[in-house]
């Protein structure tokens, strides 16, 4: 039976009990932070909306009704319709899928890449460290948005290329953080112990070093999500990210730009979606940082 005492026990009998206990403590600490809970609620809402988009959306996101084009917000079309008579609310609902996909893909590509480079540099030290961190510092000191633009220019417009371009500019931060983390324990005895048992460097890095860098990386990724969403939307706005008729929020704003002065809702509504979701990740990331990685807060 799982009870509170069992979870909070100071000497857990199994690994699982220890892990569950740790998770429980984290959850408790997060629950005490109202802003983080607001952020979590927004993220969960995004997930649910993306998951059940076909059920929630009142109209088709692609098929328009030309007779009803550029209608202002009303009871039938809560956020109005765009220049092809498509319901903007439905498009925003389906757009949640695209936003979520971009964010997840960037995180899946950039975080492990940065983690790998940072841990290898920190673990080996010496020349490996100098070369890898030199490379990281060069990427870090370049403007991210401009570099993403240049990469998309080379790869060609499209949502996949936008993801790759953003990921290429996002990894250096994770590499820096992971390396700093590794430096604090690279001389620790538990690593000597594993080494004496004959573990290869590869095994030590992936199984013993990386897991210890996970929490600070997760915090950083969550905090970066807002920036990733804004960059992706920016690329969409410039016509370099998701292509029409995909209901990507940035691309929707870009289409609405032509009628911004007379039909303000076409461009404004998707922007609210971007702001709310980015804010959600910011708030949750802040709360997560306070719980998982208080040191990082002190450093900023």
């Amino acid at each position, binding site marked *: 039976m799982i009870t509170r005492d069992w979870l909070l026990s100071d000497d857990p009998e199994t690994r699982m009990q220890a892990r569950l206990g740790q998770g429980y403590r984290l959850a408790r600490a997060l629950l005490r932070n109202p802003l983080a809970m607001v952020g979590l609620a927004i993220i969960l809402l995004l997930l649910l909306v993306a998951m059940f988009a076909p059920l929630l959306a009142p109209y088709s996101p692609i098929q328009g009704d030309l007779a009803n084009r550029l209608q202002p917000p009303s009871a039938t079309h809560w956020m109005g319709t765009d220049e092809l008579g498509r319901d903007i609310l439905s498009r925003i609902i389906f757009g949640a899928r695209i936003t979520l996909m971009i964010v997840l893909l960037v995180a899946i590509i950039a975080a492990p890449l940065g983690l790998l480079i940072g841990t290898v540099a920190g673990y080996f030290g010496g020349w490996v460290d100098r070369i890898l961190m*030199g*490379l990281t*510092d*060069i*990427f870090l*000191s*370049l*403007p*991210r*948005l*401009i*570099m993403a*633009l*240049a*990469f*998309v*220019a*080379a*790869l*060609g417009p499209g949502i996949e290329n936008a993801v790759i371009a953003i990921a290429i500019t996002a990894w250096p931060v994770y590499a820096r953080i992971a390396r700093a983390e590794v430096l604090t324990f690279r001389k620790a005895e538990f690593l000597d112990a594993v080494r004496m048992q004959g573990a290869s460097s590869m095994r030590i890095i992936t199984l013993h070093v990386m897991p210890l860098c996970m929490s600070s990386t997760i915090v950083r990724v969550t905090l970066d999500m*807002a*920036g990733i969403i*804004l960059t992706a*939307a*920016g690329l969409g*706005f*410039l*016509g*370099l990210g998701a292509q029409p008729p995909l209901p990507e929020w*940035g691309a929707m*704003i870009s289409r*609405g*730009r032509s009628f*911004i*002065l007379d039909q*303000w809702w076409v*461009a*404004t509504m998707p*922007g609210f979606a*971007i*702001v709310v979701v*980015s*804010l959600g990740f*910011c*708030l949750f990331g802040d709360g997560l940082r306070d719980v998982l990685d208080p040191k990082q807060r002190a450093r*900023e």
Partner: protein
Amino acid sequence: MKRETELTLNRPIAALNFLLTLAVTFLGLLAITFLIGRVVPIDPVLAVVGDRASTETYEAVRLQMGLDDPLIVQFARYVWQVMQGDLGMSVSTGRAVSEDLGRVFPATLEMATLGIIIGVTIGVPMGVFAAARQGKWVDQVIRVIGLAGYAIPAFWLGLVGLVIFYANLRWVGGPGRIDLFLDGMVPPRSGLLLIDSAIDGNWEAFRSALSHIILPATILGFFALAYIARMTRSFMLEQLSQEFITTARVKGVPERLILWRHAFRPIWIQLITVIGLSYAGLLEGSVMIETVFSWPGIGNYLTTALLNADMNAVLGATLVIGAVFVGINKGSDALYRLLDPRARA
């Protein structure tokens, strides 16, 4: 005595170190633009000879362009060309990219500079007051502004600003740098319209230029302000918790003097780095804002070139924005080290 020799010895070494990192970073930037230029699916030879050229012509041009040389030789040639200010020709404007960039850069500089002035004059006092009244409503307002700076897309805020202040309230001029009928009426001296029109004594042009620049500059300034206020607040809090502040309070120094003279004075050096960072960030952020406001600056040039697949122009603009960004960042960092004796140790 020992300290002095250390200082005189350390300075040149630190300066050398600084120049070396700067050079390596620039080289890295060049390597990236060079590689991007290489992976582009547009065949540079075809762009010159056209697709109906014979195989012989194609080969001859390919050799002439040095595309059969080893990559490293090509890269060295590229670096050499860039150092001489040769960024290639723009396909869409038909002019040298460097010439184009020289023409559009002042517009960006003007907007970003006004933006950073707005950001500093509002952001720094806001940060100081937030620290002085920690947890009170001023503090909360700054927290919200800081979050907004992270969560609001600049291009969207620009559009919303246009709807409210241009279309509805008619408080500001619309897109562009100046009203159409005044375009080209001011003789270009510095390229900064506000300064040029003031020198010229053309106050009608000055007012028009001001009404056009104020909205995009304020929006840029807002993003700078969000960051500057937050950083000022945390620097100030650090100072206010120190013992010399308590001493001053016990001695009965008025709170205003404590804030501005005792607590603020030690942090202005740290603020230089923050302001430098946000100034560089504004140059980058202006890409989006310029597109929204049809502002004829380097960001607009870059996005237009992107849509026309004008690679020389894209890479040239990337290179210039990147170099200025790196220069400002590293420069403000060096300035901080130079000014703050604690950072030298």
